[in-house]
């Protein structure tokens, strides 16, 4: 009896031990080899990119937070007069009509990616992770959309959705007056876009997951099979738990992709009329259509705070227990 369940339960513990942590640290001795010139070279190697990263990514991040408390329009110099406290946030949460639709669309994006596209990608990876004729060809087919930008994905799917596109033709709507406006109808277009975006995301998840599946110790499965587990049990009770690190990476990437969504909605209708997204509201308000820099920054801060959740998760999971 014990022999039957033990390998299944013990399996998840396996990959947690060992790895990089085992390498002994000898910090100081490694430095003594370096000459002064080496240390200068090293400082340059690290210093220049760090300076650029700080000035072009982290300073703007902090500046976004600062600007969000102002009503600056970027025309006159920024002074104390521009400070408006939380006014931008109050407007955003209460009167601005596009904020909540954008939040709903971002959440919808996330839900569809997490509960539909990601499981399909995992399902395909599991099907393809075996000795089988044609597995390479199948993998290539599912991966092709991943190499395309979401902007071009938008153009490709327009061929399916427009009034003279494939769908309307198949549904028998031949004249443009009776055609269903998949991309123009504010209730339909987000779904049309999500189908197209999922088409791309599935392949991405499949490839990440396949790489993870290949790294699973085959003896675990053999042991489970000998103990009488069927294919479904082996996956859900042995492989899936062992894949925990990959599962986290996949979830993090999925969340980040949903927050970054921009190109496809912008290409289709500039993120209007049913396709509002937080990322597009930021640019439309502060750069492409209006110059409400403070207000746009407040939206950016909301997006920043939400993004920090997956980013911190990713950093803690991949680097936390590691010695660099």
């Amino acid at each position, binding site marked *: 009896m014990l*022999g039957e369940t033990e390998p299944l339960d013990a399996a998840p513990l396996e990959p947690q031990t060992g790895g990089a942590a085992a390498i002994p640290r000898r910090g100081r001795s490694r430095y003594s080899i370096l000459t002064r010139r080496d*240390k200068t070279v090293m400082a340059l190697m690290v210093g220049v990119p760090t300076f650029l990263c700080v000035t072009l990514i982290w300073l703007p991040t902090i500046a976004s937070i600062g600007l969000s408390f102002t009503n600056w329009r970027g025309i006159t110099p920024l002074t104390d007069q521009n400070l408006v406290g939380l006014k931008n946030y109050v407007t955003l949460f209460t009167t601005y009509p596009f904020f909540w639709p954008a939040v709903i669309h971002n959440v919808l994006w996330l839900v569809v990616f997490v509960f539909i596209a990601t499981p399909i990608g995992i399902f395909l990876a599991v*099907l393809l992770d075996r000795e089988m004729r044609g597995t390479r060809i199948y993998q290539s087919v599912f991966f092709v959309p991943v190499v395309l930008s979401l902007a071009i994905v938008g153009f490709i799917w327009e061929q399916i959705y427009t009034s003279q596109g494939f769908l309307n033709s198949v549904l028998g709507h031949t004249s443009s007056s009776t055609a269903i406006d998949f991309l123009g109808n504010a209730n339909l277009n987000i779904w049309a876009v999500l189908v197209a975006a999922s088409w791309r995301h599935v392949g991405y998840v499949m490839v990440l997951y396949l*790489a993870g599946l290949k790294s699973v110790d085959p003896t675990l499965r053999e042991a489970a099979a000998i103990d009488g587990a069927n294919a479904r049990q082996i996956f859900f009770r042995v492989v899936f738990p062992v894949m925990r690190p990959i599962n986290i990476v996949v979830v993090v990437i999925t969340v980040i992709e949903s927050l970054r969504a921009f190109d496809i909605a912008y*290409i289709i209708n500039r993120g209007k009329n049913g396709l509002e997204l937080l990322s597009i509201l930021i640019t439309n308000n*502060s750069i492409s259509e209006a110059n409400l820099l403070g207000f746009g920054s407040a939206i950016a801060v909301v*997006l920043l705070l939400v993004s920090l959740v997956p980013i911190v998760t990713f950093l803690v999971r*991949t680097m936390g227990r590691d010695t660099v």
Partner: protein
Amino acid sequence: MSEIATPAVQVSVAPAGRIRWQRVVLHSVLISFSLVWLFPILWTLFSALRPYGDVIADGAVSWPAHLSLDNFATAWTVASLPKYFVNTLIVAIPAVLITLWVSSMLAYVFARFSFRLNLFLLMMFTAGNLLPPQVIIVPLYRIYLALPLSRLLSDNGLVYDSYFGIILIHIVFQTGFCTFVLSNYMKTISRELTEAALVDGASLWTTYRRVILPLARPALAALATLLFTFIYNDFFWALILMKTGDKRPITSALNNFQGSFFTDQNVLAAMSFIVALPTILVYLVLSKQFVRGLTLGSTKG
């Protein structure tokens, strides 16, 4: 005992007929998925090969009366695609090379010398890479407008609207991802190699140049493929930080073609197919590199 033994026997003597039947189901499922997956691209190609007039007369789903490459020729010239492809190369080539150079140096230091700052810096670079670009765009746009740049590199004397600016932001954004991948890769290279070189009196630079870079070549090749695709596919940076439509790389230039640029849906299809083709070809030719680049960063838990 019997409870353990019975299922084991079942596994070893599963009837051959059942396995074959399972294979048929498996391939049917995979083939159906493949057809659905390829369909949008094949449909775009099909539309691109047909004249608009035929689609109006016969409907989109109909047997093609005429097939030709005319739409491709029209798209190529009307949309001035060659110009935008050149713009893409002007941005992508330096951006890929410099990113790999910078991140391989960072990764070398991060992977080999454990000073306390390393973990923090690596986190800073990686986190920067993961941020949605829109979070920083408002201040970054103002910085680009305020930063002067030599007229040799910029038409208007600003970083804004210059290739330099676009290349720079790609380097800064992609360095995080590449450093993360490369430092993981370099940790797998034996420490003795670099330390022996240093003890023998080689400088840090020589060790990087002669020991680490050659050994990291597979990872660099994988990342080069991936980076080229990322940069080719960038829509956002050049859309916002490049004002002149004619100077935009191809993917951002797609924005110029929206709306009424093409009245002819089938020429639009041809244009879409042409723009999609380069990354598909890169992937088909270098698929191993491509997938390795993508998974190097994620499989290490």
